[in-house]
Structures are given as structure tokens and as C-alpha cells.
């Protein structure tokens, strides 16, 4: 049977795109290779407990009254109500550059402003001018690359402050090494500093279940464990997809959310139009589960800590398997109004080298050893910053770029995708489009808006 729209990938951008389409036409099918939806933001079970794979915090918090905020636009587009969700705002987060400076921020932007004023008094006027620029900038107008680093240093005239502001924005959504496009910087600055961070009260599973239930209510269909092996094309049109089983599904439109290069790999004759200029950013993530009363003092009143111990902040694929000099330490139980759990998690993230882990993986035992050693090194680094917690660990787990690649099929396990984005979502075919990570919007709200806006722009008006 032919379907109107095939969505490849049941991650958050695919789910949002499919719900958006299903609101007006239920003949939509999501094809997900994994046994669970969610993509990068999914979950797994160990010791009868649910662990989230990717979620630290959701960016883009907005009060219900701010109708133009990305979060509220997204909810309207999907016809979801705020009260269907249980949102919890962050406590306070901190950017710590060891032995140099620290800046706290929360969902009240004034906090960051006053922190900068007291730590960097000479940058005060420059920061205000930067805010004028940010507030007046339309990041969605197509233009060529403008270096955010350059603009920041011109305004702030302080390398340390520039690095400190870039650190959280890069860790939470930059696919590019050491610099960001100004437009992307503006999007991330708004999402993290001006809007802020929150998370759902339950787990990511509750959010995914709600989205799936909404989707099914509109009549949409999802097939799990169903990898697409080919996109069938005729001239400038996609005419259907072929599944791993050999089954062929004819369709009117295809929306791929699996990445640009990953989508090209589904053509019989891959012909990349957009060449990759530089390497992809890989990450290592560890989870440490411990009794809630064993959380160290440094976690008190903190939701997320972004740290750097190096002389300069380097955001680039490391030479070694992992670069412990910088990273993220997250306390997922530290959001306002969450009922205190019995056990808490500490999650750490560092830049990691896909290539190095690939080499290690040639010897299974060496790979597992390196994984444990890297987790220990990550824990020791975190303990230097927040205090000790190694004595009471209940469970530990680590994802390398290879783990991410295996479970999400993201090329090189690069969670933020290729460095160069395909912002218009156009793949060179009249009815085949790209949404999600490689279209350019990142984070949960960003990727969902990506799915929605590609359906709005390219598909709904033409059905």
C-alpha cells in the first residue's frame, strides 16, 4: 500500500514531523531501525532501572505567555497543551574555568549578567552591545559563515570570557570545532542563556510515550526494528523505500531524519553534493548512579557544570581517545520541584575521538579496558571539581562514540552530525527532504522544530 509520507527515523525530529503531518493526513509511516523510538534521546534498562541515553536538560525553556518562544510554537504546531507536560526548570548552572573564573547562570538571565559584571567589569558595556546584536539578529536568514568567536572578541575584548560563554553553547550543540557560525551562536545563546533549561518530571520515556500516543491518535503508524536500506528514485523523484526485509513501500514524500550522509548512503549511487570540510565532533558520556545522600557538596544547588581546566578552551576532536581537560557534569535530579529520588545520577561528558576508539575496538578486550579507564579518569576529574563520590557507586556505564554509532546509526557517533548543515533541507529531489540534526536545529526543541518546519515548508503545501 502506498503511503503519503515516509519518515525515516523515529527520533524526536521524525516524531514531530510525523505528528505534524498526521494532524492533516493520517497516511504517514515512521520507519525506525532500532527497537525503540527517541533516536539520540532514548532510554535503556539496567538492574530494573531506566536510564536515559542522552538527556541532560532540555534547552529553550519559556513561560506559557511567550507565544513566539520556540517551545510554545512547537506545542501549538503539534497541538499539545502545556498542562500535558510536567516541566521542571533548572536550579542553577555554572561555568567553571579552574583557577581562573566561574560564572553562574539560571533561567533568570539577570544572574548571568550580574556574574559577568562582577567577574569581568571591563566587559560590561561590550556585553550590553553584544546583547543588542543578539536580540536584533535573525539567525534564519541565509548568509555565509560569520565567525562568532570574532564577533565576541570584538565586543568583549577578553579571551577568557569569550571561551567561557562559548563553552556551554558548544558542548550543547556545536558540530563545528572551535568556532560557531554567528547565527548558530545566536540560536544557542537564546536557547541556553536567555531562555534556559528544564526537563520533564518523569523520564524521556514519558515524553516519547506521549508523542507516540498523540501520533497514533491522529492515525499515524510507526514500525520499529525496520531499517530502510534503499530510497528508490526515478529521475528527480523518490518513489518509495526498500526495507531490510526486501519489502518495498511506495510513497509520495520521503522525509529523512537520519543525517545527510546517512541518507545519501541509501541511494544506489551516492553522489554527495555537500563535501565535508572538517572532522565530526565525538563525545564520551558516563553515568554514575549513587544514593542521593552521597551526592558530593559541589553538586549542591547546581544542575549542570561546564568546566575547563586547560589553559585555553579547545573544542575540537582530541588527539587522544578522550580530552578530560573540559567537559560537562550534570545532575539530572537537580531541577526545581522534582520529588527526591532514592538514587541520583551524575553524568559526565567529554570530547572524544571516534578514530582512536575505532582503533581500540579492533581488540575487544583493549576497548573494554580503555572504556573503564576513561570512565575512571572522568570520575576523578569530576571529583576534583565537585568533591568525591567514588565510595558509593551503585552503577556506572559509559558510551563512547562507537556506542552512539551502534545504537543511533549516527555516522561516527557524532551526536551533532556533520559540521556543515543543509539548512533548507533540500536533497536535490522534488519530494525527498532532510530534517533533524543535519538540517541545523539541535537539541530536543530544535530538532522537533526542524521536523515540523520541513514538513510545513516542503510537504504540507504540496499535498
Amino acid at each position, binding site marked *: 500500500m502506498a503511503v503519503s509520507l515516509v519518515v525515516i527515523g523515529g527520533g524526536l525530529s521524525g516524531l514531530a514531523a510525523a505528528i505534524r503531518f498526521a494532524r492533516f493526513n493520517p497516511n504517514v509511516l515512521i520507519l525506525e531501525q532500532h527497537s525503540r523510538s527517541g533516536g539520540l534521546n532514548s532510554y535503556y534498562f539496567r538492574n530494573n532501572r531506566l536510564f536515559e541515553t542522552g538527556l541532560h536538560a532540555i534547552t529553550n525553556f519559556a513561560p506559557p505567555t511567550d507565544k513566539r518562544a520556540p517551545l510554545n510554537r512547537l506545542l501549538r*504546531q503539534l497541538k499539545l497543551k502545556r498542562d500535558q507536560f510536567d516541566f521542571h526548570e533548572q536550579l542553577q548552572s555554572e561555568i567553571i574555568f579552574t583557577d581562573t573564573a566561574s560564572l553562574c547562570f539560571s533561567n533568570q538571565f539577570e544572574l548571568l549578567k550580574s556574574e559577568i559584571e562582577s567577574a569581568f567589569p571591563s566587559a560590561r558595556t561590550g556585553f550590553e552591545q553584544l546583547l543588542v546584536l543578539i536580540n536584533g539578529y535573525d539567525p534564519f536568514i541565509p548568509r555565509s559563515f560569520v565567525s562568532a568567536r570574532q564577533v565576541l572578541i570584538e565586543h568583549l575584548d577578553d579571551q577568557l570570557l569569550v571561551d567561557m560563554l562559548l563553552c556551554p553553547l558548544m558542548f550543547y550543540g556545536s558540530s563545528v570545532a572551535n568556532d560557531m557560525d554567528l547565527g548558530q551562536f545566536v540560536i544557542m545563546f537564546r536557547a541556553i542563556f536567555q531562555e534556559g533549561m528544564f526537563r520533564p518530571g518523569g523520564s524521556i520515556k514519558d515524553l516519547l510515550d506521549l508523542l507516540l500516543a498523540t501520533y497514533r491518535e491522529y492515525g499515524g503508524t510507526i514500525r520499529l526494528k525496520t531499517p530502510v536500506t534503499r530510497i528508490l528514485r526515478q529521475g528527480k523523484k523518490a518513489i518509495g523505500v526498500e526495507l531490510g526485509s526486501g519489502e518495498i513501500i511506495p510513497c509520495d514524500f520521503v522525509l529523512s531524519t537520519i543525517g545527510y550522509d546517512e541518507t545519501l548512503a541509501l541511494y544506489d549511487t551516492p553522489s554527495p553534493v555537500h563535501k565535508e570540510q572538517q572532522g565530526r565532533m565525538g563525545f564520551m558520556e558516563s553515568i554514575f548512579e549513587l544514593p542521593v545522600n552521597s551526592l558530593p557538596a559541589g553538586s549542591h544547588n547546581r544542575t549542570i557544570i561546564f568546566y575547563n581546566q586547560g589553559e585555553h578552551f579547545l573544542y575540537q576532536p582530541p588527539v587522544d581517545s578522550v580530552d578530560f581537560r573540559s567537559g560537562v557534569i550534570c545532575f539530572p535530579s537537580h531541577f526545581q520541584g522534582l520529588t527526591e529520588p532514592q538514587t541520583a545520577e551524575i553524568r559526565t561528558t567529554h570530547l572524544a575521538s571516534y578514530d582512536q576508539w575505532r582503533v581500540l575496538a579492533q581488540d575487544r578486550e583493549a576497548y573494554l579496558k580503555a572504556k573503564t579507564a576513561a570512565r575512571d579518569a572522568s570520575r576523578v576529574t569530576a571529583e576534583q571539581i565537585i568533591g568525591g563520590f567514588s565510595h558509593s557507586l551503585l552503577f556506572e556505564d559509559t558510551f563512547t562514540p562507537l556506542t552512539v554509532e551502534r545504537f543511533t546509526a549516527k555516522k561516527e557517533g557524532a551526536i551533532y552530525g556533520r559540521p556543515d548543515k543543509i539548512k533548507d533541507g533540500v536533497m536535490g529531489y522534488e519530494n525527498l527532504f532532510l530534517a533533524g540534526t543535519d538540517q541545523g536545529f539541535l537539541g530536543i526543541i530544535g530538532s522537533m522544530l526542524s521536523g515540523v518546519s520541513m514538513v510545513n515548508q516542503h510537504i504540507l503545501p504540496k499535498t
Partner: protein
Amino acid sequence: MTRDQIKDLILDIIADIDDEADFDTLKSDQPLRDQLDLDSMDFLDIVMELRKRHQLQIPEEDYPELASLDSCVNYLEPLLKDA
């Protein structure tokens, strides 16, 4: 449909998009977007709902005709005369 019915239809669709939309101060000759704080994404909902409810196919080049309540009514009146 009469002009008033078309007006009600549009307002009903908008209320469905944003249940807190304030119609009391709405000026029918002014752009809906600015007055109701809607964006282009919301706007597409009006087009899609008209299609769903009345099988109207509004071509993309005609979207500007739906800018204000008055222009909506003017544009839709001949299309919905038998509805």
C-alpha cells in the same frame, strides 16, 4: 456561506490554534499575525484547516490573501458560496 459565517469559521480555526487568542480587540482590516502574535507556522494551520474542513486547495501564491480577517472573507466568499 455568508460573510459572517466565514468570519466565524476563521475565528474558530484560530481559537483552535491558540485557545488564548484575544478576539475582543481584533481589527478586521489589520494583519492577523501581528495582532494575535501568530507566526508563519501558525498561519499554515489556517490553510490546512480550510482544506480539512472544506476541501479547499489554496495555492501557496494565494497565502497573502489570508492576511487579515477582511481579506480572508473576501478571498473565501466565492470559494465557499455553496458550502
